[in-house]
């Protein structure tokens, strides 16, 4: 077969892969078809990767022994590590794993671009536009690689979740951006034959830009607090897609361009949805840390005042004889792996005729929709999961709101200006007839401020780990 035919066949296979990605994402519209959509997308990936291997191996010249070794051994090691991590990770640790996978994806895109540049620089292939795409791919890939690693480290607790001020702050960031811009201009001029650097010097310029990109990723994510991490991961996800598309321009490969653009667009939309849910602009999140900053206004006087501590037996009676109960799960529930206990308590209450619903804040957990996944894992029927806008009017009519390990998303201080959480949409838990908060201590949430809800006279605090507290409640309700 002629090589032109081979390429045409491979090209069709890439288009099949790209179509599978689009259809697969589309099927993620509903829980019923989502899994099927993911499998379709995986199938498209297998077709695209398989076709590439066949094309590379059968085209004139074929694959050298070394290339075969790199491809197979590299795939087995990387795929094996990915498979192992994906199968062993706890559902609560998923956000950092997704961030880690995003980091390696960005790293791979950067490496592809760097290698491409080293190969083409100084040759006729290094046209102005190719150079722009290669260099952009390398820099964006580096930013997502180091940025996602820092985000993952923050979520895992390896790096403090608190905003970390970078010495020099804004100036360093501007400096790094300037290095990248100047480098890009220099390399483009070189490609346009306006200036002549020679291979070694242009590689050095690219090296400097790569270093600046890596440093930029770190300085971008470090000052951002843990509460904003979902937005950051989503943004970096979008960057990686863009970097992959840039690599696609360089090797003129349609599947890289389509898949990269798809991910770039989806990541962008998700980032915006997330930022909207917190009533903050993306620029605002990137520019300033959340909580703990110098301009943080202390919460209103009166918080930190008296809180009422209650015991499980009292709460159990309150819950069992209520007509409407709304459960407000937060990250504390996820950390304590208490989602199954929450479902058990809810079922017990339902057997007694209590109407139980779950109020899900858009940023409950650590990624958009994370709480839904955790509760789905515990087999909570999803009609019981209510989103914020839908459930908020119902708090006024409910007898008991049971807050399990949620903090900032219930803080009434958000309705007033002057607090770090100001303007963030919250669940109107304080409207409920009675409020019970299961929490380990009076510790603060990610925003680093006291929660005024706890000082509300209607609020009873059940000091316990989410799982232990729910266990006590289950035992007490059974004993009634």
């Amino acid at each position, binding site marked *: 077969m002629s090589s032109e035919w081979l390429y045409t066949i491979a090209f069709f296979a890439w288009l099949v892969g790209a179509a599978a990605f689009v259809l697969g*994402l589309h099927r993620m519209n509903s829980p019923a078809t989502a899994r099927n959509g993911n499998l379709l997308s995986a199938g498209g990936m297998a077709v695209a990767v398989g076709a590439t291997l066949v094309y590379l191996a059968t085209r004139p010249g074929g694959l050298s022994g070394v290339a075969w070794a790199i491809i197979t051994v590299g795939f087995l090691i990387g795929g094996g590590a990915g498979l192992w991590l994906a199968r062993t990770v706890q559902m609560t640790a998923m956000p950092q794993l997704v961030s880690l*996978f*995003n980091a390696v994806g960005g790293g791979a895109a950067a490496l592809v671009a760097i290698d491409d540049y080293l190969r083409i620089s100084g040759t006729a292939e290094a046209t102005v536009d190719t150079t722009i795409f290669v260099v952009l791919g390398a820099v964006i890939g580096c930013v997502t690689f180091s940025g996602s690693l820092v985000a993952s480290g923050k979520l895992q607790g390896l790096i403090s979740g608190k905003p970390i001020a970078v010495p020099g702050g804004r100036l360093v960031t501007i400096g790094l951006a300037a290095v990248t811009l100047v480098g890009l201009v220099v390399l483009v001029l070189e490609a346009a034959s306006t200036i002549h650097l020679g291979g070694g010097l242009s590689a050095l310029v690219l090296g400097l830009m790569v270093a600046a990109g890596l440093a930029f990723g770190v300085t971008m994510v470090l000052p951002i607090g843990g509460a904003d991490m979902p937005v950051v991961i989503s943004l970096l996800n979008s960057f990686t897609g863009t970097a992959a598309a840039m690599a696609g321009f360089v090797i003129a490969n349609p599947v890289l361009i389509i*898949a*990269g653009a*798809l991910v*770039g667009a989806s990541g962008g*939309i998700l980032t915006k949805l997330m930022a909207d849910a917190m009533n903050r602009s993306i620029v605002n999140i990137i520019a300033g840390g959340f909580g703990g900053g110098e301009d943080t206004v202390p919460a209103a006087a009166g918080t930190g005042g008296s809180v009422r501590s209650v015991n499980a037996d009292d709460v159990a009676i309150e819950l069992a004889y209520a007509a409407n109960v709304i459960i407000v799960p937060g990250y504390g529930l996820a950390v304590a792996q208490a989602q199954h206990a929450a479902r058990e308590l809810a079922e017990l209450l339902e057997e007694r005729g209590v109407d139980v619903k779950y109020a899900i804040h858009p940023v409950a957990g650590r990624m958009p929709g994370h709480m839904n996944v955790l509760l789905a894992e515990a087999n909570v029927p999803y009609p019981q999961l209510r989103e914020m806008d839908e459930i908020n009017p119902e708090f006024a009519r409910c007898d008991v709101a049971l807050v399990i390990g949620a903090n900032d998303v219930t803080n009434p201080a958000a309705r007033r200006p002057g607090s770090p959480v100001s303007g963030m949409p919250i669940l109107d838990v304080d409207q409920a007839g009675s409020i019970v908060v299961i929490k380990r201590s009076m510790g603060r949430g990610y925003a680093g401020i006291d929660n005024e809800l706890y000082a509300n006279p209607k609020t009873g605090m059940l000091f316990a780990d989410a799982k232990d507290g729910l266990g006590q409640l289950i035992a007490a309700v059974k004993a009634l």
Partner: protein
Amino acid sequence: MSQELLSSLALFVLAILVGFEVISKVPATLHTPLMSGANSIHGIVLVGAMFIAAAADNPLSYALAFVAMVFGAANVVGGYVVTDRMLLMFRKRPAAKKPETGDAERASGNA
């Protein structure tokens, strides 16, 4: 710009529009799996890694291509498997929670 590059740019712009259209309809419940699913899709950069592995002819390029292969493969396989695990939890039946890895096996079988 070359004709090839211009066609690629058109493809890029259209794919972005398709991405907006497809994703803006997804309910919040599925945002995490969606983010994870999109995350696996950009693992397509594995194809780029294979191209540079094929073109590599010096030790530096071998090393870059090898690391790119490892990274890209981890992104693809890990991404799809973890997304599948998440989506398994949306099934209504309290079925056995054994993670199925059919997608990963298919991916590795073809490469």
